[in-house]
């Protein structure tokens, strides 16, 4: 595994345990999971970005006849990874909901509230993103704690959009980073990834109804590609 030039970067000690990539970031042990989330065992906290819940519902409200089921599927995925890691806290780095219409869609909202009820012991903190701001007030029953970014917590600075200067390592989303892998025989595959620079890590989008924005590796960047089953460093 390559290191930051001079070995001064924030990522160290890379280990692989059944699909998860365990790394030390700013002195903290964290796990990058193939479910497109990061788990911080010391605080039993799961970080996730860009859920875009209710995107299909919002598009339906706009007159697009899309089938339902994608939000429920995303909730199930989220639920499964919460269970697997034994997380007690979930931090959403923005864009939890896609649009105002997502909150108004009754069926979708019902599914979300139903899931929330089942997992009521999990503390959910939302660092609002651009979509959340447009979505407006969240229903009380959701029991989301709103913490506008940039929010310093431990070694981290949590915010939705990348960029800015901070003492903490910035954890953010917004970009939906993806990378194209090329192989022999003109094979190519675009996959979501964690895009990390010395000062910040951009999370892949969690929602299944989201596209990818291709990122290019830079000199000091590291890219952790998320395949269906594992996280690998490119």
């Amino acid at each position, binding site marked *: 595994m390559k290191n930051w030039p001079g070995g001064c970067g924030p990522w160290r000690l890379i280990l692989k345990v059944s699909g998860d990539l365990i790394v030390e970031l700013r002195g903290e042990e964290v796990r990058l999971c193939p479910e497109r989330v990061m788990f911080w065992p010391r605080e039993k906290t799961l970080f996730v970005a860009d859920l875009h819940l209710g995107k299909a519902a919002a598009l339906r409200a706009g007159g*697009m006849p899309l089938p339902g089921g994608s939000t429920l599927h995303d909730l199930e995925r989220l639920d499964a990874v919460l269970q697997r890691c034994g997380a007690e806290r979930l931090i959403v780095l923005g864009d939890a909901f*896609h649009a105002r219409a997502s909150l108004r869609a009754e069926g979708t909202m019902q599914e979300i509230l139903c899931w929330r009820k089942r997992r009521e012991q999990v503390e959910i903190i939302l660092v609002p993103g651009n979509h959340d701001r*447009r979505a407006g007030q969240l229903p009380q029953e959701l029991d989301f704690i709103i913490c506008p970014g940039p929010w310093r917590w431990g070694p981290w600075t949590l915010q939705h959009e990348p960029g800015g200067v901070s003492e903490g390592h910035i954890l953010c989303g917004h970009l939906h980073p993806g990378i194209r892998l090329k192989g022999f025989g003109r094979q190519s595959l675009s996959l979501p990834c964690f895009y990390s620079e010395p000062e910040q890590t951009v999370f892949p989008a969690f929602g299944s*109804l989201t*596209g990818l924005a291709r990122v290019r590796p830079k000199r000091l960047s590291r890219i952790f590609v998320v395949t269906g089953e594992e996280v690998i460093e490119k």
Partner: protein
Amino acid sequence: MQVRYLNGAKLGHVEESFVARLKKGDSFLFAGHQVQLVRFRDMTAWVRRAKKVSTQVPRWMGGRMALSTELAWAVQERLEQAGAGKYEGAEMQALRPMLELQKVLSLVPRRGEMLVETTQSREGHHVFVYPFAGRLVHEGLAALMSHRMGQSQAASFVYAVNDYGFEIVSNAEFEIREVNLRSWLDTADLERDILVSLNTGELAKRQFREIARVAGLTFQGFPGDYKSSKQMQISSSLLYEVFQNYDPDNLLLQQARQEVLDRQLDQRRLRETLETLAQGRIVIKDLKRHHRWGSLYMWSVCGKS
């Protein structure tokens, strides 16, 4: 894709594939003006007058218009004449050096002959097949053949087609012998293999792009208007996956599959083509020891003639 000056004046349309190759600041000749690409947004290429002169001119690849059987036949005839050393007309004269090089490196196929070229490159193992049956049929043939090749040996395939033939690139090496080729291009189990290659391939997904646009799912914005609400946008490939996962019987998906079956994988035309090929000779040229651009010459000749 529209081409407009920064002040809003419309110049006309170019193909997406042309603009995709340009970088910011690149200039090209369009509608009688030297223009320079400034930015590229919402399916519009914004340009300004350029000072430097460029020789780049947009070219229409003919989009999806396929060669008719008659035209394919005529081209084959021209090639046959060229094979016999007869170059009639200015166009054929212009092509003469290329065709002669092709003759040296490989072969200019005669009527009733199907040329198959194999070669290797850093990209993978290439097979070029020239049935001269038109773009649509070639797409079907390429999908069918790569599916059948995959049956005999696991590999991944990418194919490219033009009006004269198709190319299959794979990561594994296949033994390209006449027996194998004939079994890959056989009419037995045609119906079953067509359905399988339809489901596994990208064909339906690509066709769906057009259908999604016609159905108003990927909104292009009203003519002359800027595209509105960003939150209402979604790519057709994502849409395709949503439908496939949560509503596999959706009529739009069925339409996409049906259109592929009617066009690329039209059973009757495919069967006819396969039967013609079965009767003809197959000439295999292994270009490994030759100059490997040989087959690419043929490729570009095809694009131009």
